[in-house]
């Protein structure tokens, strides 16, 4: 299948291939670690196990869940929690816009894209961008398989974390929390094959914390727009001089 030759693939085979791909992905371990933390957090703020599990399936975005649980749990109003979640999740928009054109053929109905859009989160996006170019057929089903695999892993971890409930010593908790930045860093670098992506990543690393430090509102979104546009402009300038 990796040969990229035209091979008849059924949707089910593509879905299964996506599901299987999560078994070999470093993100499964990262998600497991991240969602153990989220499960423990839900428990500590007094939410039920059913609520914690539903939150993982329905929201399906790690940072948004951490914000939701900690704001609602700490007694913030629903409007305030919604605003904080909405701001943190704006990063999903460019991810979905970059991913969906790889899934569509002329005439693909938008309804079929709602499920892969729901599954889009950092882990699924990074793996899909890496694995999709070697697939011709069944890309939507493949993405749904990826999403299902990751979501199942996260669901198991949410339950595990809920019952472990932060009984871990600080060193173990620190190591778990550090998994996310570490693995996202390596995977993004591995994916950034073109200069424009490498530049964008490096600029985001520098601009992101600066904007956060200056306490601009929507700092992540702005660092993305400024860093990404700068990288794109440099890429265009380089293309033009060739």
């Amino acid at each position: 299948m990796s040969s990229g030759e035209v091979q008849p693939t059924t949707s089910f085979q593509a879905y299964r291939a996506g599901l299987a791909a999560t078994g070999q992905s470093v993100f499964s371990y990262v998600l497991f670690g991240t969602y153990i933390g989220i499960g423990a957090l839900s428990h500590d703020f007094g939410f039920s196990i059913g609520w914690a599990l539903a939150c993982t399936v329905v929201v399906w975005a790690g940072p948004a869940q951490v914000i939701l649980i900690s704001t609602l749990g700490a007694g913030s109003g629903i409007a305030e929690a919604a605003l904080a979640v909405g701001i943190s999740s704006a990063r999903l928009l460019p991810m979905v816009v970059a991913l969906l054109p790889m899934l569509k053929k002329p005439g693909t109905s938008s309804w079929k894209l709602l499920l892969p859009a729901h599954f889009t989160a950092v882990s699924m996006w990074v793996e899909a961008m890496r694995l999709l170019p070697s697939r011709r057929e069944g890309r939507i089903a493949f993405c749904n398989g990826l999403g299902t695999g990751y979501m199942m892993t996260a669901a198991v971890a949410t339950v595990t974390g809920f019952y472990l409930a932060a009984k871990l010593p600080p060193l173990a908790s620190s190591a778990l929390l550090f998994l996310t930045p570490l693995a996202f860093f390596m995977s993004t670098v591995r994916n950034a094959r073109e200069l424009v992506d490498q530049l964008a990543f490096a600029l985001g690393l520098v601009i992101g914390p600066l904007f956060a430090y200056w306490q601009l509102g929507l700092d992540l979104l702005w660092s993305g727009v400024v860093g990404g546009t700068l990288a794109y402009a440099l890429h265009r300038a380089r293309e033009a001089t060739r």
Partner: protein
Amino acid sequence: MSRFASEYGAYLAMILAGFLPNEVWRWLGVIFARGLDEDSEIVVWVRAVATAILGGVIAKLTIFAPGVLAGTPLSVRIAALVIGFAAFLLVRRSVFAGVLAGEAALVAGALLFGIS
């Protein structure tokens, strides 16, 4: 959660404050992606924006660390990220090797500063 009158209240809050403000960006993405081709210039730009946001998220999680991770010195966290990246480059761009080396560096550094 005790402040929610019922379990249903907590689920309603999840939908209003968690699901809707999050999912709306995915729905907007479906709308904006209509008619875009994967090689079009706007998609290259959008991918650069998404990648830069990811860089920002990673840097923020490292520098303004959440929870107990904030108890480890900033220098240890940054050094662990650099060591992880070096291992990643040395071991044929293996994400697994990078994560392992970075985690080992973080734990060693934390132990050095008396966190256990």
